[in-house]
């Protein structure tokens, strides 16, 4: 497409949107659209053709109807903190920013439900619930910035999801519009909505199925007390085995996180969390509940960790110390960002029993690709976040990084895990989807997408690769030596 054609298209779309949106809510000058060129995955950038900033549900509906009629791709965006490029704009489409949907519509303390607009930040929900002794459980590390709409799109987790679940387990109902502007509601504030579980299908669908304009979330009573153990290990394998030992003892910690020495050292310089810098790895193991319950559980955890070979155990003495221990874990990404020009964060999830094996594999890859890779992860869930350190200005190093990451993710699949536990596929891991799924599953994903969005306009090209892309990537996972549905056209 020539430059002139796309300019006229840009004006056509902007004019159509300005027919019902105020001028300042439709952006297309480069200086205005530049801030939207990427999300938290900055390696991929694209200027959107147009940015739309609606404020009301009716405006969202009209944006969608307009785009649907004009055949213009639409990419919804929350705070833009996503790590997989799910909100990477379409060069030929509209970036639909939900940033103005910032209202908390209802906090019903008695029903333990909050109804919020999608642009409300994750941490705000717990803040407005706090006066009632309630909170919203999923706490991704980016919780001060990320929005509930983005959490719904990615099915975000956090450090407490081993015990309290993911976004999926804590969202009751969504309201929104299909790309054709049809209003719909999925889920319910009553249990078990009738029909197929479209709520489960929508959560984690990366903005590919419909646009969310309202979210009902479950609020939980805040535990009276919480304490965390910092356990030091002189060997990473032992730390991995200790994780399995805690679970095998019948304990479900409120949080169970692991960091290796390169990660604790980077963090300690940044926030002084009080970590044991001599340990090869540390575990943070939290208990919450009533004071008596916590005391009892902490004692049991300490016994299991000591038996699993912990060389040092420190238990938080008060809330300030507990928050300090967690501050390091929560600041791990920015801390690593200080010791390297760039880092590449992976998100594979594996069965807990394979932790040691996969960590050793990552250590081998560090040598093979001559790149450093500190590890921080949600050990209780087996969700790894290895951070490959590199310099994006060095094209050769970026290319090595991507191959390193690709090998690690495929290792995760090989040991029975997945390429992404909570960050989403987006554009980043789209090639690895070809390793995780066969063509029959990918075809079905496309069919699910078409059921909601027949024209393929919502967030196109994300999350699910075309079969053509997989065969180019050379990782088509063919079962039984034959492609299914040989009669179908390959897109």
């Amino acid at each position, binding site marked *: 497409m020539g430059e002139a054609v796309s300019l006229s298209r840009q004006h056509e779309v902007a004019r159509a949107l300005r027919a019902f949106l105020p001028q300042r809510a439709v952006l297309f000058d480069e200086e205005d659209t530049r801030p939207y060129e990427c999300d938290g995955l900055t390696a991929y950038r694209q200027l959107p053709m147009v940015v739309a900033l609606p404020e009301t549900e009716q405006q969202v509906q009209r944006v969608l109807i307009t785009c649907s009629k004009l055949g213009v791709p639409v990419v919804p965006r929350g705070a833009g903190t996503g790590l997989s490029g799910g909100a990477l704009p379409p060069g030929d489409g509209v970036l639909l920013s939900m940033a103005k949907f910032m209202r908390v519509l209802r906090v019903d303390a008695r029903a333990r439900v909050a109804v919020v607009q999608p642009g409300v930040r994750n941490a705000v929900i717990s803040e407005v619930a706090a006066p009632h002794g309630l909170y919203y459980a999923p706490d991704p590390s980016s919780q001060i910035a990320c929005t509930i709409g983005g959490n719904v799109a990615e099915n975000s987790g956090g450090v407490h999801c081993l015990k309290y679940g993911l976004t999926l387990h804590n969202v009751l109902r969504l309201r929104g519009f299909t790309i054709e502007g049809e209003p719909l509601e999925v889920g319910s504030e009553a249990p078990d909505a009738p029909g197929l579980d479209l709520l489960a299908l929508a959560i984690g669908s990366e903005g590919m199925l419909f646009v969310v304009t309202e979210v009902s979330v479950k609020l939980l009573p805040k535990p009276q007390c919480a304490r965390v153990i910092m356990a030091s290990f002189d060997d990473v394998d032992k730390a991995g085995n200790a994780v399995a030992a805690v679970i095998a003892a019948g304990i479900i910690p409120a949080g169970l996180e692991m960091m290796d020495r390169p990660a604790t050292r980077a963090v300690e310089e940044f926030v002084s969390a009080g970590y044991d810098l001599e340990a090869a790895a540390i575990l943070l193991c939290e208990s919450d509940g009533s004071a008596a319950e916590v005391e009892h559980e902490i004692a049991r955890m300490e016994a299991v960790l000591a038996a699993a070979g912990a060389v040092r155990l420190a238990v938080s003495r008060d809330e300030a110390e507990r928050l300090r221990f967690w501050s390091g874990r929560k600041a791990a990404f920015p801390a690593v960002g200080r010791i390297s020009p760039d880092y590449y964060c992976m998100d594979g999830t594996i069965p807990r029993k394979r932790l040691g094996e996969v960590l050793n594999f990552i250590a081998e890859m560090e040598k093979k690709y001559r790149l450093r890779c500190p590890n921080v992860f949600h050990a209780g869930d087996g969700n790894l976040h290895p951070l490959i350190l590199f310099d994006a200005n060095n094209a050769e190093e970026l290319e090595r990084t991507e191959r390193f990451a690709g090998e690690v993710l495929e290792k995760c699949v090989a040991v029975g895990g*997945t390429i992404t*536990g909570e960050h989403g596929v987006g554009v980043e891991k789209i090639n690895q989807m070809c390793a995780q799924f066969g063509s029959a599953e990918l075809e079905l994903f496309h069919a699910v997408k078409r059921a909601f969005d027949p024209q393929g306009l919502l967030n196109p090209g994300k999350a699910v690769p075309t079969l053509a892309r997989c065969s180019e990537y050379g990782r088509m996972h063919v079962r039984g030596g034959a492609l299914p549905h040989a009669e179908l056209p390959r897109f």
Partner: protein
Amino acid sequence: MTLAALQERIRSAVARKTPLRLRGGGSKDFYGNAPRGELLDTRAYAGIAAYEASELVITARCGTPLAEIERTLEASGQCLPFEPPHFGAATFGGCIAAGLSGPRRASAGALRDFVLGVKLIDGRGELLQFGGQVMKNVAGYDVSRLSAGALGTLGLIAEASLKVLPRPPMELTLRLETDEAGALDAMNRWAGEPLPLSATAWHDGALHVRLSGSDVAVKGAAQRIGGAEVGVTAVFWRALREQTHAFFAGEETLWRLAVPSITPPLALGGRQLIEWGGGLRWIRGDDPQIRDTAKRAGGHATLFRGADKSAGAFAPLTPVVLGLHRRLKDAFDPAGIFNPGRLYPEL
């Protein structure tokens, strides 16, 4: 029986344009709209494929008896936290396809919350694999949980992995005398406090509350709640879960109303039993206002057991959502051979 044999059975049904009635132990034949089609009995495809207690995951084939799953978990001190009803010789696959949860639903979560992955045979006879055995997985759409509770309308769940949890070390049940409004108020109030509630039930002036957890937590909460301790706690909750409790006896129609838990007492005729902290209200009888009343409260009513299901077992969907259901059905089962009409007449 092998997976290949199941796939072949499905392909042959497609070729013969013969609808299939997917069925495990037949314990939930009464549930949903009337089953029809040629019987495909899944019980021959059975067995626990993988279970390691420290992974908190069990993977089993669809025909495995649910009782065998629970015995296996119990031997390792674990359980299915959503406490599924059996209603007879239930199978693992049937349990997931029906998507029903028991007394612990309000505190532990629903069946679908524990689904981690499925192997599904679609309406082309294709074996598809979604999710897996890990706790967190956001690769691809969540088809595993979509197939839970779909009553077999999207495909045959050949194998599934569920998250399991340790059994609570201690359980205790308290009984309090209170009227319906008092019970609803208390259940909602307690649910907002950090108490180890694991089940609640009100019927005929008596509120039963089950506490599960560590010794200290349960004893502390029992003091807070008050009432009298009931002797054999498991028997009462099993009778509720399996609907062998006297409330469920007889031929009268049984409605299951799911409503927001704070919904005030419903102005409906018929006997009533409340569970799930107020979120689930069982009603006997044929009050014509039942569906409207549930809808007005922000919930929905299911005709759970009854001789006449001409009103449809499940609450009607909005046209937009029904349209999505139809298109999803076409995506999974283009020939429309799986359990036609069981969920909605249009599917």
